[in-house]
């Protein structure tokens, strides 16, 4: 898998970030394993230390297994004044986990996010690449039950 992804980008040092993004998105647990990083280092000819440093620099990357759906909740000022703390509480309550944790069934991970550029529909969250705005308790419940049914 790692090899395929690298070949699709071409063996080039500057493709490191896009390659790591693709590898992470290609597995259901949305993370980079130690083995992934070693392979990338070997195939691209970049020192392991640098691959590791890049993988820990960018907040999109995780070295720990995460859920199938990553729920990133914006906690910047425009969302806060429009009720982001309620959104955070709702997600935590319904899923029974804290920020940074993954549900035991491996479906959902809760994370904070910086502004998602969705401030005109604050409070906002991004779930597996999709933006959701104007969040309230009702909407959150229906989003989660939709995702569970997928």
């Amino acid at each position, binding site marked *: 898998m790692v090899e395929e992804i690298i070949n699709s980008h071409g063996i080039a040092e500057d493709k490191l*970030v896009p390659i790591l993004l693709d590898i992470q998105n290609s597995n259901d647990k949305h993370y980079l394993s130690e083995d992934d990083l070693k392979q990338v280092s070997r195939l691209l000819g970049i020192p392991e230390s640098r691959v590791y440093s890049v993988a820990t*620099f960018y907040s999109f*990357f995780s070295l720990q297994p995460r859920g199938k759906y990553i729920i990133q909740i914006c906690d910047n*000022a425009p969302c806060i*004044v429009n009720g982001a703390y309620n959104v955070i509480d709702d997600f935590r309550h319904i899923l029974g986990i804290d920020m940074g944790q993954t549900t035991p069934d491996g479906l959902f991970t809760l994370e904070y996010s910086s*502004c*998602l*550029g969705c*401030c005109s529909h*604050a409070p906002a969250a991004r779930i597996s690449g999709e933006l959701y705005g104007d969040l309230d308790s009702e909407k959150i419940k229906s989003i989660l039950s939709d995702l569970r049914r997928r």
Partner: protein
Amino acid sequence: MSDLTVKRLTQRCGDIDPRDVSEYISTGGYKALVKALLTMKPQGVIDEVKASGLLGRGGAAFPTGLKMQMVHDTPGDVKYVVCNADEGEPGTFKDRYLMEGDPYQLVEGIILAGYAVGAQKGYIYIRGEYDRAIELMKNAVEQTRKIGYLGNNILKQHFNFDIEVRSGAGAYICGEEFALIESLEGKSGRPRYKPPYPPVSGLWDKPTLINNVETLANIPYIVSNGSKAFRSVGTDNSAGTKLICLSGNIANRGVFELPFGITLKDIIYDIGQGVPGERELKMIQIGGASGSCIPSDMLDVKLDFADMKKNGLSMGSGAIIAFDDSRCVIDIVKSLLKFFAHESCGKCTPCREGNPQLYNLIDDFSKGSATPSHYDVLQSLTQTMQQAALCGLGQSSPMPVVSTLLYFKDEYDMHINGRCPAGICSSTNGGEII
């Protein structure tokens, strides 16, 4: 919609199918590219941009024509154009609006910039959170290549140019030009020491023109219609229009294209329709997370680079965040500092250590444990950061603290005395901090 708004950069947003290049062309798109390649020399394009008075829209308001001239004049066969679409400034979503509403206009602007400075390749670096913009920009580049406006010998001229779209991976600092360049090179996004600046030594140490989305999106208009038409809107020192993003406690949130020269009051009460509900406006923050926080009686300032500077303000990214009188100034500043402490890249000490320190000091106010001596510490710490941090993040992150100490000092004092007037830094009973 209020008639203060202008439809220039945003003329097609919402009206055309952003996937369909023929709709762009049938509404005057790629006219500027044809005009430039067939009738203008690169220097002619630069001269027109210079005459337009266009100032960079990414925050620093640097004259775009001058930057182009620097890249043009730096010797070298390989040059790059980089479009900064890392828009991560909290409360800012104008570049997203432009990319999702009219992606071809940006592509055309980048090709024109490439022609002007003598570059062969352009990059669009879009923040990873903007999934839809990334997809639309990739499509726009592909469609443009199909009709022959990207690739080799564009319009049968000796001009080869192509564009690659790259995604960020969740790092606000990558909006800083050298951090972005490092990220494009496949590294962690940490700023470099300046000088040299990107026009002299940028991407892979080659001369590089790096501009914001909105800046580049202005270029087709300038080339098509000329600098005089461009200057017909705006003020003497701030020509053209500015995309302003309204968010927070304001009735009409969104992106608005506005002529320079109107007042902040017009923006808040006419465009934004004021604060919703029975509340009053308490404060606005202008320019993004590191912008100044000012009270509601300072709204006569004009949307104009010079007038704002005179009043100690900066336009920044064009974000205006409104806060009503139910909000606590200390709590807002705390959330901003949390953001900066999280986004600091860690390369230099004043910022890496300073932001968490600032956060802790402000947190003391919200916990009711601050003392008057906190003011002295705050003053020396903010000064140190402003003077000694390596890049704009650490230099300007103290701004919310500095500006609220200037305009909302009474609220700090009240917290020292154990009172949060908004009742936010408190337990449930009556605003006393417990």
